[in-house]
């Protein structure tokens, strides 16, 4: 059994006539100890999908219209508020993009980590355990650091504190929502190294959300590429990077700036991501797609398993 199984998840913002479909038929799985990357442009539904796992998107305005999110075989969409509180932080923990904003500015970090322990491991809610966690995430001199306020720490240190809080309950799944976007490149590498190291040591699965394809190769076992609320390609990371099949994935990889080579202009994908509620009929990428055919804008293509373990939402994936 997979640790997480999202099946045909459909979510709207708003109801009835004003409903805007933010997530449309998203399905993927995460096995125990596996790292899955969720890649896509801003606004494509990555974060909302990730938050949905512990049902953290407020309803209303969100409205789940279909699908299942099976965490350890149990559907979080059907859980009571009490059960959700157990799941949140207990089975699935989150690390967010901006560590400075994720920590409460008026409390010492030691107390914030202790709060996480009190909720899920009350018997271990003491300074010794907090210090152990801070050591685990590589914070030097943790004994004096527990008295620090968040603003006294650098961004990288703050993110380590967030990771320590997330790990306090030894979750099965860590959802890291662009954990390094707010940090500079050297700190990014440190945090990612820390995540992969902790993953191996603690045997937890990671759902890593990013729009940085460079991270994917280092971290991911499998990758799901999202576009306009849909998964357009799902594949093992190495294969996807070596040979992307969906035209959007190809365009995305082409638009990564290269340090070497003689290209003097950055190649960008023409056009913009369609706004939610304003999706084109048929394939949502068709208006920007270099290989689009007239029939592309007639019907939403299916997510096809073209090779074992490789899914593509494009019938013309063989055309290059």
């Amino acid at each position: 059994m997979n640790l997480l199984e999202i099946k045909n998840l459909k979510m709207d913002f708003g109801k009835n006539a004003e409903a805007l479909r933010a997530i449309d038929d998203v399905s993927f799985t995460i096995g125990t100890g596996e790292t899955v990357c969720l890649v896509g442009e801003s606004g494509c539904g990555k974060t909302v999908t990730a938050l949905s796992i512990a049902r953290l998107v407020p309803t209303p305005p969100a409205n789940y219209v279909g699908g299942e999110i099976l965490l350890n075989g149990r559907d979080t969409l059907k859980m009571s508020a009490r059960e959700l509180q157990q799941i949140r932080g207990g089975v699935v923990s989150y690390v967010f993009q901006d560590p400075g904003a994720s920590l409460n500015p008026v409390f010492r970090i030691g107390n914030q980590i202790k709060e996480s322990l009190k909720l899920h491991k009350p018997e271990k809610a003491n300074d010794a355990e907090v210090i152990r966690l801070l050591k685990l995430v590589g914070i030097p001199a943790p004994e004096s650091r527990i008295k620090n306020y968040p603003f006294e720490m650098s961004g990288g240190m703050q993110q380590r504190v967030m990771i320590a809080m997330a790990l306090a309950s030894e979750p099965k799944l860590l959802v890291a929502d662009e954990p390094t976007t707010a940090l500079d490149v050297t700190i990014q590498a440190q945090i990612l190294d820390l995540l992969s190291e902790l993953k191996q040591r603690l045997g937890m699965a990671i759902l890593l959300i990013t729009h940085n394809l460079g991270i994917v190769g280092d971290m991911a076992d499998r990758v799901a590429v999202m576009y306009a609320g849909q998964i357009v390609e799902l594949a093992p990371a190495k294969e996807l990077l070596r040979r992307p099949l969906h035209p959007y994935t190809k365009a995305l990889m082409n638009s990564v700036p290269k340090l070497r080579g003689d290209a003097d202009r950055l190649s960008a994908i023409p056009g913009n991501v369609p706004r939610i509620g304003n999706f084109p009929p048929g394939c949502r990428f068709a208006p920007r797609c270099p290989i689009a055919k007239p029939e592309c804008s007639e019907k939403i293509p299916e997510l096809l398993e073209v090779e074992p373990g490789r899914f593509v939402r494009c019938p013309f994936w063989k055309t290059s």
Partner: protein
Amino acid sequence: METAEPISIAEPKLALSPWQLFWQRLKRRKIAMAGGVILIFLYLVSLFAGFISPYNYDHLNTNFSFHRPLWPKLSGIRVIMPRSESVTGNFIYQEVPNDTEPLHFFIRGDKYKLFGFIPASIHLFGTGDDNYPVYLFGSDQFGRDIFSRLLYGSQISLSIGLIGIFLSFAFGLIIGGISGYFSGATDTVIMRFCELIMSIPALYLIISLRATFPPDMSSAQIYAMIIIILSFIGWAGMARVIRGMTLSLREQQFVLAARALGQSHLKIICRHILPNTFSYVIVAATLSVPYYILGEVVLSFLGVGIQEPQASWGNMLSAAEDVQYLQNYPWLLAPSAAIFITVLAFNFLGDGLRDAADTKSL
């Protein structure tokens, strides 16, 4: 589990906490500090009112109605009280020459209860003889010492401010927090109710609320009633501001992070959102204490608050409402000076706190 490799060496010096920074900025504001010192002095005096005052608040001395302020004199190394006599029977007193009584310190006098429960009868000063009264601020129409009554009155007037603020702000914080955090229908209902309370002029609301309580109540009941009435009016404004701050705070990522940890709604409100409003709340509380003190004064002045013979600054002032009295016995206005000083001190302190809480100021 082992430790991961440390990346950098932490600086050993701890930075100042937000409260320490706040205190440092406050210390630089002399007027605010003066206000704070005055308030500490006033509250200390009111705490020891029974001991400092020479008489009890209901100590009658009908021979000396409307006596002008009478201060002890220095005679050699002794402090003495001269004796006065009413010559014309018209509350005009004249000193009797060579008839004095020494002023004693730590003298046994009227029985009182220190802090409300320790029985005691030692007073800081006094003559021990009703024929030689000590009237630092004069006496009222029953010959009661206004200084003593002022001190006893401060126990009521000053504590009503603090307890009232505490109650109404506690309500305002929790209700405003709930309203802003849940928003939607909860918010609408709570906010319309707040606006209803705020739309009625406070004085009418005070008087009509007073009418809902029975007219004959013990002084302790009246005291509690005044606090309840004033807090009932005061929480709405607080709730509205807190609701507004909560609306912005709940969108902060640390609230989402707390929810992602499995924290309950109530704890998120109380532990994550409300503490972030405290720098505002402390300032607002300090600046609103005067309204509670004045509210008690208004109620007692109108005769529906603290009842005679119990002393409060409000009902002492109601004795001074007669213009004739005011002309002839201006010392009856002593409570208004006390109110003036207290309100000013609170405002000075509040202004300083606001500046200190504003991190953009120097």
